[in-house]
């Protein structure tokens, strides 16, 4: 209701300045929230798990329709709708389903590989010739794709919980890749130590960038959304500069770094044919670590209190500015680890495609995961599966890989607009308590 918003002095959105500065007159109970807080609450609190699943389902249906009706065969069939209506519909159905089947086969499980496995003379030859590996290859690829998404997703989710929007997972990831790559080829160390040093390097590379953002916010009040976006540009161009100069692979004229030493590779978990590597375990451990930090430690208590109500946290004696810095430092480190996992796990050298759009996909992963560690794990696995399955889908059904990005975008769109999903599925607004709370306040 309009009475919840008394005309007060306009507050700069997300103004982190002294929280007490604007309160001289306005002592009303209507609490002023920053733009960021409102956005965060509307996304995080407006969603139930049901809504998330319905959002994914809806996105898949719409994605299928889009897919079917951009296919020339289907469109031809619809051109003959009146002469052969059945053909038109079944053609559309086949196209949509075919693409998803291929996506599934590419990301989770392909029955053909099992058939091939059982056609082998003996189990040992099957293993030896890689037929067993082929069965698990889709899952392995899903995990490989999910690893950087998961780590970078945590880098967005953790600041989320502390009331900040980290749009800069991209720049922090680049920072991590630069340092991890440099340590990978630039120094020579014994096997296990080299891996560890590079992983730490990845963390530090990202953490430095996160720290800059936190420090700027704490000292000058610069909003993290602005600084992280700008740092994304700065780091992309810095990378381009480095790859063309000091980090360029000798004898190459394109932008690519030397290959990192074999000692710096993250060990593969199930033999050399499957690409799944220790990076995936690292990512899961980080997810657990973030959960533990947030919900089992005093530091996490501070993070969450400051995220939900910075002024009450300040009154309770918490150091809000120092927490901002710490949160961004850890988040940057997590994004840096994502870079490390890509370089040391699968790519082994750094070029301009390495970082792709992980940093931005991370935002969608964190949104879909509702900013919670377990949610981020599940969301990263889902998007990892999309990424892993897309090439096979394209190869088998001639569906453009971009449909996967459309799917991701649709999912996030629906997750960001829970009322839309509720309206589509006529869910009872699960906000009775919320409404009561709202009017309870109005009754004051």
């Amino acid at each position: 209701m309009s009475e919840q918003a008394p005309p007060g002095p306009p507050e700069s959105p997300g103004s982190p300045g002294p929280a007490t500065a604007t309160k001289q007159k306005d002592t009303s109970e209507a609490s002023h929230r920053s733009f960021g807080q409102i956005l965060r609450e509307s996304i995080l609190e407006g969603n139930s798990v049901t809504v998330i699943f319905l959002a994914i389902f809806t996105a898949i249906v719409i994605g299928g329709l889009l897919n079917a009706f951009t296919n020339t065969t289907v469109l031809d069939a619809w051109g003959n709708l009146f002469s052969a209506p059945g053909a038109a519909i079944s053609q559309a159905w086949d196209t949509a389903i075919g693409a998803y089947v291929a996506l599934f086969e590419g990301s989770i499980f392909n029955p053909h590989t099992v058939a091939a496995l059982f056609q082998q003379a003996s189990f040992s030859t099957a293993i030896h010739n890689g037929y067993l590996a082929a069965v698990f290859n889709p899952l392995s690829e899903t995990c490989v794709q999910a690893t950087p998404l998961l780590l970078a997703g945590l880098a967005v989710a953790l600041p989320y919980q502390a009331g900040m929007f980290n749009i800069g997972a991209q720049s922090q990831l680049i920072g991590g890749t630069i340092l991890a790559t440099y340590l990978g080829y630039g120094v020579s160390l014994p096997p296990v130590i080299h891996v560890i040093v590079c992983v730490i390097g990845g963390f530090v590379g990202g953490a430095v960038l996160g720290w800059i953002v936190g420090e700027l916010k704490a000292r000058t009040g610069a909003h993290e959304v602005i600084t992280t976006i700008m740092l994304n540009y700065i780091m992309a161009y810095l990378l381009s500069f480095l790859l063309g100069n000091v980090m360029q692979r000798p004898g190459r004229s394109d932008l690519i770094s030397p290959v990192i030493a074999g000692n710096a590779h993250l060990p593969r978990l199930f033999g050399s044919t499957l690409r799944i590597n220790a990076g995936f375990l690292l990512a899961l451990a980080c997810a657990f670590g973030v959960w533990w930090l947030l919900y089992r430690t005093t530091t996490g208590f501070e993070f969450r209190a400051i995220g939900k109500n910075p002024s009450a946290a300040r009154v309770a004696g918490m150091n809000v500015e120092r927490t901002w810095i710490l949160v961004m430092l850890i988040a940057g480190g997590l994004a840096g680890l994502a870079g490390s996992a890509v370089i040391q796990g699968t790519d082994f050298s750094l070029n301009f495609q390495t970082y792709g759009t992980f940093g931005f996909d991370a935002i969608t992963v964190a949104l879909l995961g509702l900013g919670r560690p377990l949610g981020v794990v599940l969301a990263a696995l889902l998007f990892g599966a999309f990424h892993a399955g897309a090439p096979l889908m394209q190869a088998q059904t001639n569906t453009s890989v971009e449909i996967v990005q459309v799917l991701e975008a649709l999912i996030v769109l629906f997750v960001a607009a829970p009322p839309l999903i509720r309206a589509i599925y006529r869910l009872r607004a699960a906000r009775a308590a919320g409404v009561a709370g709202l009017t309870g306040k109005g009754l004051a």
Partner: protein
Amino acid sequence: MTDVELELKGITKRFGSLVANDRIDLAVSPGHVHALLGENGAGKTTLMNVLYGLLQPDEGEILIDGKSVRFHSPKDAITAGIGMVHQHFMLVPVFTVAENVTLGMEETRPSGLLDRRKARNDVRELSRRYGLAVDPDALVEDLPVGIQQRVEIIKALVRDASVLILDEPTAVLTPAETEDLFRIIRQLKDGGTSVVFISHKLKEVQAIADTITVLRRGAVVGDKPPSATEDELAAMMVGRDVQLVVSKAAARPGDVMLDVEDLTVVDETGRVWVNGMSFQVRAGEILGLAGVQGNGQTELTEALIGLRPIASGYIRLDGRDLTHSTPRQRLHAGVAYVPEDRQEDGLVGAFSVADNMILDNYDRPPFASGINLHLGAIASNAAERVQEFDVRTQSADTPVGTLSGGNQQKVILARELGREHKVLVASQPTRGLDVGSIEFVHRRIVRQRDHGVAVLIVSSELDEIYALADRIAVIYEGRITGFRPPSVPVEELGLLMAGSEVPGGPAEAPEAEAPEAEQAGAGESS
């Protein structure tokens, strides 16, 4: 009464499982002041929002002059002659009074330009008729709260309101402004306008109403004439007998615990909010700081707790200098703090009751060792405190934001009083609370005093100051205009609150003519 103008019949409004209004009947006669009395959450505002078209009733009907009407929006209600002055004003601060009044019903001259002259004349005319003394050309942001409220009243009158709803109109006013408002209400009444006066303050309702309807838990408990006694009305509101004034023994002040000397607080823009203020609070006494809101109370308490830098002066706690300590150091040194705005500064609404119970204590044993939180200790602490302070909540895991104001305040008190503390600073400790909760909060504060805690109460409610204080200080524009014993007449406090330094108050030292001398009087006066 035959000429019933406005009637509500069987109004029911539900929010989910909560019944905010349960078959409410209400009849407002023309030229009457009809008070709606009830605790917070009794459904007063919901009912008025139904009447004003902001909410649609689930059942029941609204009758105007006997005809059933349906309001789909405030526009319909305004057309039907109903005006509402909200608790929080709906004014554009950078517009003039006349502009605010015409906003939404701007009239234009044939040329298409705004007819400002007519707007100004309307305001002047109404202002004169009801003795409102409002300048149509003044900017709203420059006006005191009391005048802003009159602008809201003019807004309603310009739209030909014959029924005026005032939602907790006195919450933001000084005693003198309240008197002015009552005068205006009487004039409106004489002019034939009916007024629905919503309040939970017994005295005011008795002073102004012709009929009092008491609501409790969404239902009408009964109608009373204004001659009903306070105790009677309070019992109806709460549903049981209530002690309106907490009985307390005489204070036995001990050593000086909180010593504020020559304190000056300046904000970022250079405005001086607290101007060389000095006072002392002794162990076992309650100092009540009275004053109209916005005279530096907020800044003073924030400076005491360490949220605002101190430009000059000292703050000492039991002899220890805290002038430049961080909030955490002060909390650990033994300051308990009940902030003015509990939802903004006192609680994290999305956190559970249990987490809010440790909000400023989470990093100390038994709740944590190192960085590890002890969830067991947190849960058992919450269970204990919920019991002790009678916090009405489904469980300790319920988000605190869903509790009622009174229960939220109990959570804060439970947390602050549960810590070791020597000084309790409580700002507006019962703002927005119902009678029952006020009784509870007052009793706890007095009990802390009796245990030897030095208590500073900052309140703009004189009733509260009188009920609690062993000594009263009055703040005006960042200065203390006088210290008085609790026997001081209300008129004298009113003068001090308005800034006149009344010399020779009984509690003052003889040299009270000089403003600085008050500081000397502070310590001894108890």
